[in-house]
């Protein structure tokens, strides 16, 4: 029953998307103008179908309807409510449905924004492009990634074989297989994927406008100025999604780290780097009219990177290149990626002569020059991550041999590139446009440089002489000091010329130009994040402890006392844990419970770390063995780990603050002041 409903909903969304293309196409190819109102029906059909499909999956999960293969394989009776709901997007088919839903919502917001105008062919064209993307994703759901497949042969638990057609006779198993225990182990797994998806999918909006702008020959920067809100929203969510993913990896996986340059992580990092570059280069185009052709290339590349990311994470190609053809979704995504790249670049090449020949830069020593440097570094960074991720796959595919490309390769590039980026982040925002006189810049960075040197010197004298740490401290404090100092200088000047306190002046400045100051908040966030990463990588200490009940061990200034083992029965899992008392200077500061979580229906236990976080740092205990004789655990002490999470979220919040600029000025002059 629910299968019929769900597949019907997908059909309606697919129909809506096709109609959207049909009606929007004349505007997209620039042949004739199409009133926005004509797109109302298809957009609503797309949105309604997408919502209904998601609701149908959730309904199946919540009612334990094991006649659906998806429910039988990703859910079991007794799973807590949050994880039951999250199962709606925790596996392949469901995640495509969520993707489609987010895409439909964004399509709807584009429609709503354009609705007021009598004629808006740029938006109509963009909606047609969004329709094309929707056709692909809803097409996937209707064919190779059908979430409403009927279970035609029940296993002991879960479904043995599924039939595509909703009229197949169902043989529902008595209970389902349950979600992957790793995904059930932490609440972050419920939030992280939707965040990433909003980020990924939001980037299709500027892409769609870019294609519509090229297709319908809309000259100028309208496509990029109008889509600023989606770009910033997407970036903010993507950032949050990546940070939460890293947090999850740290808090759940128990390997003592948060980022492994794993292909799945890289898959989200490449679009992030390119989107970051685009956010910056869009500012220069809107303000100075330069980089017009480059911005088209960049936005096409960013969108392609989101599809590539989905391909990498969803096709099974990572486990082995030979496994990915087992499901048709891999080739389908790869084909779509090829169509996107070839189609967009052919269109771009055909219309290149119509893209205004940009005025040349007056000088590289200018704000424009700094933006250019930023784009060069970010693009090369993205390229490095891309090459490092794909290289082992290509070598395996063509030569059959395995090549390891791991942390050392990425770090060797990421460290110097990050240093250069953060340095540019310090100087760029206080460099004047057109031609910057060095003395003006020097005046703005003189005092911050002094402060940065002072903090680095303190670090050298009292804490560490680790080279990376010294450089990163110098750069991060420099960035933060430049921003605070610049704000202070401006506020001081304002407070003097117009009467009023400095505090008022600061508020007035921030409200007067949220685009710029939102960016600066994000910069502070990135500086804090980078410092946190450096501290965590260079000042970490780790060890392995083995304790019998009652024994204690010393580690990194802590005394760890193994009190006793414990067992706890929870609805969906059995918890075997160790009570470990943490003492510092003889005083008890915490009792930690590192655990092994045994999920019902899963063979191996999940080692779950316990973390004691303070301002000074994290104590991280991850059990590897737990039995009657005692506990063996890996322990880490990370200094100031909170900086990573706080910095990342601050960066996302900065982008959110910039959005205020857009709401106020109704899109018109948003970028020109940034």
């Amino acid at each position, binding site marked *: 029953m629910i299968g019929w409903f769900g597949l019907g909903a997908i059909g309606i969304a697919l129909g809506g998307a096709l109609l959207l293309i049909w009606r929007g196409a004349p505007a997209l190819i620039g042949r004739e103008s199409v009133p926005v109102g004509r797109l109302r029906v298809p957009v609503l059909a797309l949105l309604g179908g997408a919502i209904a499909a998601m609701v149908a999956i959730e309904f199946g999960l919540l009612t334990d309807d094991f006649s659906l293969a998806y429910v039988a394989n990703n859910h079991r009776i007794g799973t807590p409510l949050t994880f039951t709901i999250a199962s709606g997007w925790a596996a392949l088919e469901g995640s495509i449905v969520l993707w489609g839903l987010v895409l439909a919502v964004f399509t709807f917001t584009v429609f709503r924004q354009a609705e007021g105008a009598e004629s808006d062919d740029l938006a109509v064209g963009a909606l047609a492009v969004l329709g094309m993307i929707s056709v692909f994703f809803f097409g996937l759901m209707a064919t190779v990634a059908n979430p409403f497949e009927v279970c035609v042969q029940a296993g002991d638990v879960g479904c043995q074989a599924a039939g595509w057609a909703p009229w197949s006779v169902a043989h529902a198993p008595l209970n389902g297989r349950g979600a992957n225990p790793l995904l059930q182990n932490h609440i972050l797994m419920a939030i992280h994927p939707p965040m990433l998806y909003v980020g990924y999918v939001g980037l299709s909006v500027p892409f769609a406008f870019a294609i519509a702008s090229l297709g319908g020959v809309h000259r100028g920067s309208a496509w990029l100025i109008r889509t600023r809100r989606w770009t910033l929203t997407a970036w903010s969510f993507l950032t949050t999604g990546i940070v939460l993913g890293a947090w999850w990896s740290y808090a759940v996986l128990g390997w003592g780290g948060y980022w492994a340059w794993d292909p799945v992580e890289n898959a989200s990092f490449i679009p992030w780097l390119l989107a970051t570059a685009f956010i910056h280069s869009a500012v220069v185009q809107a303000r100075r009219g330069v980089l017009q052709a480059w911005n088209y290339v960049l936005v096409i590349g960013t969108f392609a990177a989101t599809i590539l990311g989905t391909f990498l994470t969803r096709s099974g190609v990572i486990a082995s290149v030979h496994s990915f053809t087992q499901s048709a979704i891999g080739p389908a995504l790869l084909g779509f990626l090829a169509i996107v790249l070839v189609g967009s670049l052919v269109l771009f090449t055909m219309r290149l002569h119509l893209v205004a020949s940009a005025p*040349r830069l007056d000088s590289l020593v200018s704000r424009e020059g700094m933006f250019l440097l930023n784009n060069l570094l970010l693009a090369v960074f993205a*390229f490095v991550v891309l090459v490092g991720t794909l290289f082992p796959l290509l070598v395996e595919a063509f030569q059959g041999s395995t090549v390891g490309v*791991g942390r*050392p390769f990425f770090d060797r590039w990421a460290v110097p590139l990050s240093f250069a980026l953060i340095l540019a982040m310090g100087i760029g925002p206080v460099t004047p446009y057109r031609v910057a006189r060095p003395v003006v810049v020097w005046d703005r960075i003189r*005092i911050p440089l002094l402060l940065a040197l002072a903090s680095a010197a303190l670090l050298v004298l009292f804490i560490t002489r680790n*080279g990376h740490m010294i450089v990163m401290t110098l750069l991060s404090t420099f960035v933060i000091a430049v921003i605070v100092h610049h704000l202070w200088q401006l506020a001081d000047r304002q407070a003097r010329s117009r009467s009023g306190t400095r505090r008022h002046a600061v508020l007035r400045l921030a409200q007067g130009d949220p685009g710029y100051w939102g960016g600066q908040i994000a910069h502070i966030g990135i500086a804090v994040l980078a410092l946190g990463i450096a501290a965590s990588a260079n000042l970490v200490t780790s060890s392995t402890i083995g304790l019998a009940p009652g024994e204690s061990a010393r580690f990194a200034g802590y005394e760890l006392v193994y009190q006793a083992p414990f067992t706890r029965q929870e609805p969906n899992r059995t918890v075997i844990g160790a009570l470990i008392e943490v003492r510092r200077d003889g005083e008890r500061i915490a009792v930690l419970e590192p655990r092994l979580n045994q999920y019902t229906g899963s063979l191996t236990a999940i080692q779950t770390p316990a973390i004691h976080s303070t301002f000074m740092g994290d104590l991280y205990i991850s059990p590897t063995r737990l039995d009657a004789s005692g506990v063996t655990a890996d322990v880490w002490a990370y200094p100031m780990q909170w900086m990573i999470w706080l910095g990342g979220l601050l960066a996302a919040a900065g982008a959110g603050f910039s959005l205020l600029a857009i709401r106020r000025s109704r899109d018109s002059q948003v970028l020109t002041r940034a």
Partner: protein
Amino acid sequence: MPERMKRAIASVITVVLAGIVVWGLVIGEPSEQDRVQALGSRIRCPVCQGESIADSPSTYARDILTFVEEKVGEGWTDEEIVSYLEQRFAGIRLDPAFSGTTLLLWLLPIVALAGGAALAVRRTNRSNGIR
């Protein structure tokens, strides 16, 4: 205090602080333990999924790390240790060698960086400099 004095004092302090920082960078030689960690992160744990022996908690990884520690203590160079292990276990480098097929991996980003920089410079108005 006159502005010029202030500036002069600030410059002196800047130079002194910069001196301390540079000194810290110069004397910050890696200790043996740093070297073991750095080497460990370059060597793949043969029984794990893409983890290095420094990251992996498995016993096997620990054994190799202990071996690396011994050899560092005996004064072997980094390259000697890595190539010794590479002969024992094929494909153990997480840090692809700077030769053969993997040379491409190292060169591509450099080409991209150089190409991008050249393009940026070419697109800049040079008449400004002459004027």
